[in-house]
């Protein structure tokens, strides 16, 4: 598929790289010569220089009547450019248009995207903020990504005092019959595997599990019994979009929470203080130890560093942890820094670029039958939701007999609309047509999984 992407900033770049690797033909429109040159050098894409909101530029990129462009993704950081680009693309007969929305009111409800004639408006900053919020709320979790409004995939480090240690997963499941959850991946030392029912967990393992959001605290209790404490105070450094949104979401979701937002830009502080009345905005340097101590870093449950600089964020998160913050999260952009997670005394590192682009990438892949729910770049895996089509060869076959690749697992199956129609399949379960299966698989095994399940891929 030929896809035109507007903007080669951090979001556009990551989206272009991922979709190009997926096999799409990508045309990237970028005005800034430096960014354009970077994309040309590093990506296998066509770069058109110019303003993506100008019809002439878009025409050069192949957005024209009767052109072969099937999709336009507007990823610039300006809403007016994105919306105008989408509008022009629509006029030119581009089949689907997706726009990043910086202004939050555009994605509060679906009304704006409908009115503007845009198939999908996504706010990547919001999803980063959601992830940070989920990590704060579930103190024991190391990673989190929401699958939909009710389910998510959470990673926990297995604590020394967890009762899950030393017993098989089958035994663990029998101990908690009410919990609808499945461990889909275990990372032990430097290697990872998809666990079977007879595998035994040991302290220090990083486990990824599917679970329902309303059961997340009970699950956290199993793996991190001591860390499972209530969130009362959060200190956020950096009042950019992610910091702002995290504060806003926390304020909405956690009752009576005390949020302190620190930024060094006084104007920004003033603006945010007037927009978020319940949040205490502090003007100062996030690395100012006295300020952090004054604001109670020693007893705070959560600390988030979300400034413009990755290095600062990592150092601040380490500093906060040293000063006594219960959970310290750094928001970064550079993928390579994710590797530091093991070596630094930080509880979680959130890659905002990944979250930013994964929302858009999954929106593109949603075109297929299979629907990517979350991309877990740090372990090279994804979560997909698959609708089993009529006539699939997998129907009626017991799962243990399905030739699924080794690095994949069917996590949950939803049969019918009801909540109690959800079950965790075992080796003797079999799928029916129109079942909704949530699958966890290594990124390079996804296509094979889809083939086995008889899902047509694009």
């Amino acid at each position, binding site marked *: 598929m030929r896809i035109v992407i507007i903007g080669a900033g951090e979001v556009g770049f990551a989206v272009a790289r991922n979709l190009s690797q997926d096999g799409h033909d990508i045309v990237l429109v970028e005005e800034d010569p430096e960014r354009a040159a970077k994309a040309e050098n590093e990506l296998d894409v066509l770069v058109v220089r110019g303003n993506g909101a100008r019809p002439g530029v878009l025409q050069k990129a192949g957005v024209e009547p009767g052109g072969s462009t099937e999709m336009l993704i507007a990823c610039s950081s300006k809403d007016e450019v994105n919306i105008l680009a989408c509008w022009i693309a629509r006029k030119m007969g581009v089949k689907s248009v997706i726009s990043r929305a910086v202004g939050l009111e555009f994605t509060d409800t679906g009304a704006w995207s409908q009115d503007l004639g845009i198939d999908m408006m996504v706010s990547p900053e919001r999803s980063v903020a959601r992830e940070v919020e989920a990590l704060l709320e579930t103190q024991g979790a190391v990673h989190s990504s929401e699958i939909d409004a009710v389910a998510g995939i959470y990673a926990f480090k297995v604590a020394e005092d967890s009762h899950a240690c030393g017993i098989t997963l089958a035994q663990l499941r029998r101990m908690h019959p009410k919990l609808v959850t499945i461990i889909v991946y275990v990372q032990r030392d430097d290697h990872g595997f998809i666990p079977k029912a007879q595998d035994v967990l040991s302290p220090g393992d990083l486990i990824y599990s599917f679970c329902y959001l309303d059961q997340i605290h009970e699950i956290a209790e199993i793996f991190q019994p001591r860390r499972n404490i209530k969130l009362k105070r959060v200190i956020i450094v950096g009042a950019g979009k992610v910091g702002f949104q995290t504060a806003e979401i926390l304020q909405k979701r956690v009752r009576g929470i005390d949020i302190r937002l620190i930024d060094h830009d006084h104007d920004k502080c*003033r603006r945010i203080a007037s927009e978020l009345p319940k949040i205490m905005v502090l003007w100062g340097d996030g690395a100012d130890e006295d300020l952090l101590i004054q604001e109670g870093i020693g007893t705070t449950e959560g600390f988030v560093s979300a400034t413009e600089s990755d290095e600062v964020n990592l150092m601040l998160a380490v500093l906060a942890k040293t000063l006594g913050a219960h959970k310290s999260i750094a928001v970064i952009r550079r993928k390579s820094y994710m590797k530091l997670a093991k070596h630094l005394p930080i509880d979680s590192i959130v890659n905002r670029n990944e979250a930013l682009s994964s929302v858009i990438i999954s929106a593109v892949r949603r075109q297929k039958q299979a629907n990517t729910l979350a991309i877990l770049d740090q372990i090279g895996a994804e979560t997909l939701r698959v609708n089993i089509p009529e006539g699939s060869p997998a129907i009626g076959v017991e799962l243990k007999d399905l030739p699924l690749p080794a690095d994949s697992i069917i996590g949950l199956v939803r049969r019918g609309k009801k909540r109690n129609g959800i079950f965790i399949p075992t080796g003797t379960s079999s799928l029916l047509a129109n079942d909704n299966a949530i699958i966890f698989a290594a990124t390079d095994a996804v296509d094979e999984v889809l083939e086995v399940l008889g899902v047509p891929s694009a």
Partner: protein
Amino acid sequence: MKIGIVARFLAAVTLASSLCLMLPIAWSAGSGDAGLAPLALSLASGLITSLLFAAVGRGSLMSEMRTREAVCAVILAWMTASAIGALPYWFGNYANSPLDAYFEGVSGFTTTGATVLPRLYAIPRSILLWRSFTQWMGGMGIIVLTLAVMPVSSAGMKLYASEIPGPVHEKLTPRIQQTAVFLWKVYIALTAMQLFFLKLGGLDFFDSLTLAFSTIATGGFSPYRDSVGHFGSEYVKWVTAVFLFLGGANFTVYHAVIVRRSLRPLGEHPEFRFYFSLFAAIGLLMSLTLYAGGVFASLGEALSQGYFQTVSMISTCGFFVVDYGSWPASARCLILLLMLVGGCAVSSAGGITCIRLLVIIKHTREEFLRLLHPRAVIPTRLGNSVAEPWVVSGCFAFFSAYLGIFALGVIGASLFGQDMITALSGAAATLGNVGPGFGMVGPVDSYAVQPAGLKIIYIFLMLCGRLEIFTLLLPLYPRFWSEKVSL
């Protein structure tokens, strides 16, 4: 500074206020009372003055009006209008001296309601109607009235801001003229409603009209020495109380109510909420002290009188039903404080205004938070919006200027030999455009016995209160005159 522009504006204001004399003249002609001659003479003098101003200002362009011209125009307009208001008292010999007549004129246009006229019962009804009518015109403002009928382009906002009370002046409509027209429409509608209800209660047309004029303007002039108590009617008292409350509330709320066709803006407007809460709380406190002090035998009577006096004072009207001068000190203290607070911005009330007090209270309360969190950025919130720093500091500046002028008034009165209660309440009542105070200037007394020098001070305080101090004091600031004065 160009005198010609000022003169041209004054010509318009003088013409407008002179033409207002037509109302009492018509009344006098209809009823054949003795007020016709002085009123007609006043009209003639006013028209001649207007022509003189017009001659001086001939050829000047209103569009060239700058801050200096606007300030001079506003101050002189108020002084001239007050003089026209005073003419009938002087020509008819109803006042003891020209100074007394002028005092009454200023007291009328500034909606103060402090009176120096002796023997009210001996004054023709047409003159008494004029007396209440001056308050009605002064309530929404003669300049706003002029703006409503005369387009003045860019200078309009400056003129408007100098006359409408409040720390910030938001236009309700794209054009200042439309805003002025809207304010006057609401004002006239409220007056008509009160007139209707009073007539419904059996008051005659003259009583209804004078009472309605003085109520909506929160002025306080009454044709009778015993004010609202004269009518001896609970109905009249409550109708008056309701319209006093409305007259002292922020008129922009009415705009929101009308535009949105819902009463919700009343609950959302921070100043209106504060005004209402203050009224409810102080009224209750006053009623309870009155009951506890044994002034009224029943709690119901105490509540009724307490709340009436509270609304009369918070709206800076100065009406009374009973002589509150003899109330216990606790109740009188509350009354004195209410005089200082006053009503809302963009209303016909005076005083420091609720919005400024609210900003000051909020900002002061945030000071505690600032002590605990020295680096915290804490904007002063008003409902859904935030008061900009210069608005906050403007409120503090006004507050201190108000107290400063108040102090000068108190010192002046005491130097003229007044006792402490009289000096304090006299300054508060004139600066706040309330009217009656305590002691020698109590509700049933008159300012007529005050020495002439003190009357001049009070005239200054009344104008200060109506024009919100800074406008009136600006010409006293030397740099104001740094620009060459020319025609």
